[in-house]
């Protein structure tokens, strides 16, 4: 069993604190993805779990053991690095066996394990090559091979796919997912790519400036972002975030948005606390700002008009850039008779998916 517990972990470099009291429980066999913008402390956190970096305060447990003062090699972990860290002067086989040799495993067992890893990753043909003679994706697989031969309790990945092109990245994503199902270990995976996070994770941990913003399943963080940062970070294209004001009319809260748009706030948990005149930030994902046929499914008073700026066809759907007041928001349309650029078109807001945030605290309030 290898759950990982991170309790109130702080990291300081000199006087600069980069991780601020982080708490996280990773279950056995769970695939957890740490995601966040560059410099938010993801790699630092991962290196602390690996033991490559001391922790300033707090506690890290792997299994039942506090590992704060345990050396990396005794933590029973394996790590895959962004630039693969394959030794250029060794063959693929030697690279994969490197940790086993260091651990002085019997030759026969080394070979057997290397062969097994090569089989899982489809590297049998490449064992005698050197890293320079491999493609990016193959190098990536060798790096994973080096990790799996050690049969670790916990796999740590630090942006393993960021050096690959988009197509290879998505196929390697699938391979990593398959690998996880095959080898059944706990995985902590760092990325700044939210698509990678959404597709791979059992749970996502969203970080910003060394602080966890939200922990949840991909759907939870997508559907119920805890704050403005998460709302803007998860989802592509980004959620529309619009400055708005609450106005009560006949006792019901309504949302006044730029461009003279005025829509009701559907009654739900939290809608009662919306005082008249309160400034809020409204969040609606592009797929919930619709035009064309999809309008018919929405109540009459969830509609408005907006000027169409740019139309970006994506194939099965199109993105619409819509001007409301002096703001531009993104909408989506699926049908073929789209409004043309420059049209003053009817649009609809699917307010069942409306998010409201407090502009000061940035927390979700509705």
């Amino acid at each position, binding site marked *: 069993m290898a759950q990982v517990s991170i309790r109130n972990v702080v990291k300081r470099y000199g006087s600069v604190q980069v991780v601020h009291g982080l708490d996280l429980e990773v279950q056995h066999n769970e695939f957890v993805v740490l995601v966040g913008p560059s410099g938010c402390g993801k790699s630092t956190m991962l*290196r602390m779990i*690996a*033991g*490559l970096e001391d922790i300033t305060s707090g506690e890290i447990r792997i299994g039942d053991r506090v590992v704060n003062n345990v050396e*990396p*090699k005794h933590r029973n*972990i*394996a*790590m895959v*690095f*962004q*630039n*693969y*860290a394959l*030794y*250029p*002067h060794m063959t693929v086989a030697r690279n994969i066996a*490197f*940790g086993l040799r*260091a*651990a002085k495993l019997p030759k026969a067992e080394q070979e057997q394990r290397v062969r097994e890893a090569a089989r899982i990753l489809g590297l049998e043909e490449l064992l005698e090559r050197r*890293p*320079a003679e491999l493609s*990016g994706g193959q*190098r990536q697989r060798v790096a994973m091979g*080096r990790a799996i031969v*050690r049969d670790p309790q916990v796999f740590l990945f630090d942006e393993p796919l960021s*050096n690959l092109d988009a197509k290879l990245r998505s196929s390697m994503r699938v391979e990593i997912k398959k690998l996880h199902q095959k080898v059944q270990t706990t995985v902590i995976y760092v990325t700044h790519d939210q698509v990678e996070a959404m597709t791979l994770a059992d749970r996502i941990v969203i970080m910003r400036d060394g602080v966890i913003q939200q922990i949840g399943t991909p759907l939870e963080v997508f559907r119920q972002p805890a704050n403005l940062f998460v709302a803007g970070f998860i989802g592509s294209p980004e959620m529309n975030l619009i400055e708005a004001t609450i106005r009560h009319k006949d006792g019901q809260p309504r949302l006044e948005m730029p461009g003279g748009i005025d829509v009701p706030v559907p009654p739900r948990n939290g809608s009662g606390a919306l005082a008249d005149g309160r400034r809020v930030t409204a969040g609606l994902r592009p797929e919930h700002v619709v035009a064309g046929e999809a309008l018919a499914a929405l109540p009459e008073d969830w509609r408005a008009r907006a000027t169409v700026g740019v139309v970006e066809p994506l194939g099965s759907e199109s993105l619409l850039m819509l001007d409301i007041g002096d703001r531009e928001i993104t909408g989506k349309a699926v049908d073929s008779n789209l409004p043309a650029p420059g049209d003053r078109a009817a649009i609809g807001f699917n307010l069942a998916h409306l998010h409201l945030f407090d502009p000061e605290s940035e927390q979700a309030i509705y």
Partner: protein
Amino acid sequence: MTADAIGTGAAGSTRVGLFRGDKPIRPGRIVAWTILMMGGIAMVMPLVFMLSTSLKFPHEIYDLNLIPNEPTLENYTYVLADGRFYRWFINSLIVAIATTASVVFFDSLVGYTLCKFRFKGRAIVFVAILSTLMIPTEMLIIPWYNMARTFGWLDTYWGIMFPGMMTGFGTFLMRQFFESVPDDFIHAARIDGLNEFQIWWQVAMPLVTPALSALAIFVFLGNWTAFIWPLIATSTADLYTVPVGLSSFADEADVAWELIMTGASLATIPTLIVFLIFQRYIIRGVVLTGLKG
């Protein structure tokens, strides 16, 4: 119409071809070549003279002709038959190999530590090492001599070698080269269970072979040709290195140039071998470090 178009197209392409062939030789190039050529001759001439003198009889050495009138290998037979030269040659080899091995080992160890470990005083240590580069050797000879005399190192191999067993320059060079070794390599090795010394030796060192080779060449040549300190540190002919020994061919009465030049010609052989061996690693090393994700 079509034929016309093809015609002009063909003419156009010929013209391009012509332009390519006729790249005009710019005057700047001629000047540059001339200067380079003169520089090349200036550098090669002494060597050619050395070789040619070694093939001459004593009476001919002041005729500055490049091709000896009566070429002879007599000087070589003489120098090689004289046991002293072997002795000096071995002495030089011992000194140069030992200092080279020591410098390559310790300079890269210190350079690696200064580059990859964070500790209090790291910057001060580095600056202190750098500042030794600014002290000319001539100023150090007297302190070295006093030190060697106090410890009884005069007239020993150690006495010849000790000032060069580590160099500030090599430490600096290696530190800079270790910057190019990504930390992830070191982290990966640490997770794989290597100790810090193994990481340095098995992972970091193979990645900086070009720098090591360059350093080895410099240090070997420097020690092979060193003259002043070995001259001062030794007084028995048995401990002379080749340069010191050769200079002793010039006694007060008579300078035996042909013998000096013969010894010097023979002495270039190890430097050539060292260069040929390590130069390969420089080239291969560059190929290795050119590897990126």
